[in-house]
């Protein structure tokens, strides 16, 4: 979500426009979710941190100094709550939740099966492999890419706020991590 849009929506929502709030949630929710996912919290913790970030954002709505940076504000809030969870539990609950990895093949509802073509099955398999290789990347790459893959693509300022990395190093790290992912896929013959 670009800054002009975010700024206008924040101001409108602060003035009582519920539709503007909804648009903010729709535009920035995937970013917040990406941040908590990047930190590998358990599902329960992830849900709580996500909610905490939005509750606090709602609470500060009329007081946010730079409304255009709403994405960075939310990302940074989510990050700090994630770090507290990690500090508190002193151990990371890894997201090796099989449901996450298998979700594609799990979608076997009757309606779905009717629609499934061989092409779609091959596509799902590609997506599943891609995800698996992504999950097995080193921790820093996995974190960075998980945040970068939010929809819409976050700005580097947002990514910086989400992960505490300098804006200037995001580009090179991104390039390197994507190259690494691609090398893994190639090694598996997945490309």
């Amino acid at each position, binding site marked *: 979500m670009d800054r002009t849009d975010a700024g206008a929506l924040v101001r409108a*929502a*602060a003035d009582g426009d519920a539709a503007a*709030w*909804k648009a903010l*949630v*729709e535009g920035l*929710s*995937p970013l*917040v*979710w*990406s941040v908590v*996912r990047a930190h590998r919290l358990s599902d329960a913790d992830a*849900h*709580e*941190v*996500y*909610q*905490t970030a*939005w*509750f*606090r954002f*709602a*609470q500060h709505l*009329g*007081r946010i100094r730079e409304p255009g940076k709403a994405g960075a504000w939310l990302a940074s809030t989510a990050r700090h*709550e994630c770090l*507290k*969870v990690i*500090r*508190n539990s002193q151990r990371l609950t890894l997201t090796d939740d099989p449901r*996450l*990895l298998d*979700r*594609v093949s799990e979608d076997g509802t009757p309606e779905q099966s009717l629609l499934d073509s061989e092409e779609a099955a091959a596509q799902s398999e590609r*997506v*599943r492999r*891609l*995800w698996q290789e*992504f999950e097995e990347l*080193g*921790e*820093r*790459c996995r974190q960075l*890419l998980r945040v*970068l*893959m*939010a*929809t819409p*693509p976050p700005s580097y300022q947002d990514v910086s706020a989400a992960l505490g990395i300098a804006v200037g190093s995001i580009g090179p*790290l*991104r*390039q*390197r*991590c*994507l*190259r*690494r*992912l*691609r090398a893994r896929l190639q*090694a598996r013959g997945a490309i």
Partner: protein
Amino acid sequence: MSDMNGDRYDDGLYDHDLYEDDLSGEGDFGDEEFDAGMLEEELRQAAAVLDPVPPELQQIAVDAYALHDLDARVAELTFDSLVDALPVRGVTDTPRMLTFRAGEVTVDVEVTAQGLMGQVLPPQPARIEILGGPRPGFPLTADDLGRFTGDVPLSGPFALRLRTGGDVVVTEWLRA
């Protein structure tokens, strides 16, 4: 590819580099051009399918608009033992201590497994609500010395809304 990498790294190191986690290290291997943007876009699509925001969770964020309250002052978190306190060796089960401040009003809170206790300073009676989200909270009363106790275990996000005299103060949302 017949550059210095060939002299310095053997294939084993190359493989190792794929798995090591230190990105600050030197040596971009094989500087082949590829469309990073396309791979990122594939990941974006994969995330949308495999790890989307749970719809019920997003609905909670939409409903959180009700928490937008222009009349209340926000008491900011100024101390959180989880972050600001030095760990005490051998003591693992310490209660979480929080301090919030809005202007002259300070709220000290201690979160325990049983619930919470705290004090409003300067000492004054207050009606307090423990909020857990955009819905009515759990009511408490602070006595003349500003002390309050709540016997509901906190879980998840919470905030306290305090009414003292004509003033409404809400503590910053936190995860218990």
